[in-house]
């Protein structure tokens, strides 16, 4: 999703900005309708351009749907989340995980689920759905969410101690200060299995160079439409899902005023030119002050790197039409903080647009909405 790719130091393209305002107004109108009566709204007549059915929540609205920790859905979601963490060597207490279940305005009786760690907080959520032309059984979905770090991450299990006969640390390199994930799940138009939802896992790692002001911020988001290992009962095999747009962005968090100003320099980003020499199953490396972090490349085609010195933002944008079970984007940025005592916070943006097409049913739907998550303010 290309939103406000403005060059450093300039203001927004006015045409683009007006369009955003228009869409924001349209979004607000539809969101209002949907919030009042999601079922009837979801059953509206097929759309025309700029009239996707949309649904947007700000931070307080998301938090109003947060489940109590002992509710079954919260426990189930949180347990899956922490079990996944454990496989990655991250030990997360169930009390550190938050779950919100938001009534899905597009599919009656389902929920849009958001899971996140303590120390971070969701800032915004946006969903859009569009039908195809007359007679087209397919449809498109746009989904985005933003999340910010709000604590230094002292409950991370990645620092301090260890176990067993391992835990090699390398003083000459960067060390992992903290790392978390957040997950978004929602029901497809055509579910492949009886229980599966589309899942978007957005993860970050903060790497510190010991004793210096240098940091590497590493991001990846994986969107999974179908897990090949999921043996649930198949509902339909006639639908295919295509990735049309997939974007990740990161920048210093604005949720915590002091820390926003504490990243003095945006030094480098990667990948810087995704198309050149990109080879799936390889890696790129970003380094600062003699330390480096390597990142796997799992997607090459259709990528455009994102980097803006102001507001110190990096990311990666996929545009195309690709049918695959999952897509993953990786990007990283190198920063200098004001001094070696500063622990900077970042914020993350995720956006995906998917087209679900039914065999012999046409494939014309498109999401027209754009969502910037408030990052341009």
């Amino acid at each position, binding site marked *: 999703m290309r939103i406000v790719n403005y060059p450093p130091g300039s203001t927004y393209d006015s045409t683009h900005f007006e369009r955003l305002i228009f869409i924001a107004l349209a979004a607000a109108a539809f969101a209002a309708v949907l919030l009042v009566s999601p079922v009837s709204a979801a059953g509206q007549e097929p759309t025309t351009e700029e009239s996707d059915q949309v649904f947007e929540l700000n931070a307080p609205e998301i938090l109003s749907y947060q489940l109590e920790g002992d509710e079954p859905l919260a426990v189930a979601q949180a347990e899956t989340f922490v079990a996944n963490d454990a496989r*990655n060597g991250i030990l997360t*207490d169930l009390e550190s995980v938050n779950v919100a279940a938001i009534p899905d305005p597009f599919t009656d009786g389902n929920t849009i689920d958001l899971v996140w760690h303590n120390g971070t907080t969701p800032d915004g959520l946006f969903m859009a759905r569009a039908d195809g032309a007359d007679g087209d059984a397919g449809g498109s979905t746009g989904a985005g969410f933003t999340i910010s770090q709000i604590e230094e991450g002292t409950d991370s299990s990645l620092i301090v101690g*260890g176990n067993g*006969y391992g835990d*090699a640390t390398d003083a000459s390199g960067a060390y992992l200060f903290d790392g978390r994930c957040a997950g978004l799940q929602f029901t497809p138009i055509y579910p492949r299995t009886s229980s599966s939802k589309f899942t978007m896992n957005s993860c970050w790692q903060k790497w510190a160079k010991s004793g210096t002001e240098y940091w590497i911020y590493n991001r990846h988001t994986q969107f999974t439409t179908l897990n090949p290992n999921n043996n649930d009962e198949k509902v339909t095999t006639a639908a295919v899902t295509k990735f049309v747009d997939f974007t990740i962005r990161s920048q210093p968090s604005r949720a915590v005023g002091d820390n926003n100003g504490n990243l003095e320099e945006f030094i480098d980003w990667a990948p810087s030119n995704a198309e050149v020499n990109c080879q799936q199953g390889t890696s790129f490396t970003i380094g600062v002050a003699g330390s480096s972090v390597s990142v796997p490349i799992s997607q090459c085609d259709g990528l455009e790197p994102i980097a803006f010195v102001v507001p110190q933002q990096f990311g990666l944008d996929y545009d195309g039409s690709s049918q695959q079970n999952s897509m993953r984007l990786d990007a990283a940025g190198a920063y200098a903080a004001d001094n070696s005592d500063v622990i900077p916070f970042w914020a993350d943006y995720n956006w995906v647009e998917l087209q679900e097409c039914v065999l012999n049913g046409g494939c014309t739907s498109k999401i027209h909405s754009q969502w910037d998550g408030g990052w341009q303010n």
Partner: protein
Amino acid sequence: MTVIDRLRTDVQLDNEGGASAAPLCESQPTQELCASVKVGDIEQRYALYMAATPTADTVIYDPGGPGVSALSGTLTLQSVQERLPSEYNLLVLEEPWVTKEISENCSNSMSGYYSALREAEGIEAAALSIQVECALGQGMYGFTPERYREAVSMISESRNLQIKGFLGHSFGSVRLSYLDSTVPNIQPAWAIVTRPFPVGVEADELMQSRADVLRGVLPGEIASHEFAVEISSRSIPVTRFDQFSAFVGTGYVADAELDEVLSSISSVADPQLIGTLSDQLWMRYGVDALSPGVLAFWEETCDTMGQVTNPPEGISSVEDILFATASVCDSFDVASTVESGGTDVCVTSSVGDSVAPASLIGEVFDEAIVLSVDSRAHGDVIGWEDCWDEVVSDD
């Protein structure tokens, strides 16, 4: 852009096409390069970082464990490869537990065991339950010597690699011992292991030796009363069990922070820190769940050091914690020491290391070059470059 080290390595040939070629890499993503090979019935995941200049010469990197999720990104494997003083590919095998499904009965038995430890009740029966419910000892979670050998052999063959060297940390010494000379083309010419696990030492001697080293750094007085502190973001209270566990966990704490951490544990000034150190030692997550990584830890360490003679029935000292870490090993036999004949070995040791005691390293690695280092923290790999100069010959 003045301080930047632009270390981009854009082309890292991976003949198998990386993630897309290996279903297990796609369904459970890694933060490192990921490929896989079938070893028997099991898909073995691994990362292979190729040298910038194409070569078949390869170093196996084993970060120790067991219980380490080697492809999770925390080890920055490409950085390890790039820091090798000369051009080698780097091969890293992932422990089987990372992708192994765990049955509910097995999970429950681990939780039951953890609760038994915390409550000092029924530890022996709970440990036995894990052996049964999780089918411990069949090499499903950790490596067996055969599986490790076979995996290295198959990967070497399919990727046209020549195993020249071995770089390991701690339990990496046990993996090195798996690469014996009975299988052609996988025994490295040289090996470096920082803070090696003393292969062949029995559990009783290892735990007592660890306790002796730990006693040397602990404060003289440790509170003997029971306590329970509730803290937010933790499902269970911090208790004396966690305090003793945390003291054992100081074996991994960086030297610069050790005094402050020890003082904080003693006074219970920072219960959050105590909880974190304890949870890391036992690999607790969720509420009372233990990471499947701990199954690998038990399976492989029990196979290596055998059982302890008298597993503790309660926890009232750091010794109890140390011996309790082996309480699941009942009826396991110590593996015989495998001679790594033909491999030039250099190891590091520190008299302050309470995880891999220097006295035992000196006994076990009597034919190796042993470099003494000052740093006490077990995770410190300092000295590996000096070892490199000792044993690696780039011919």
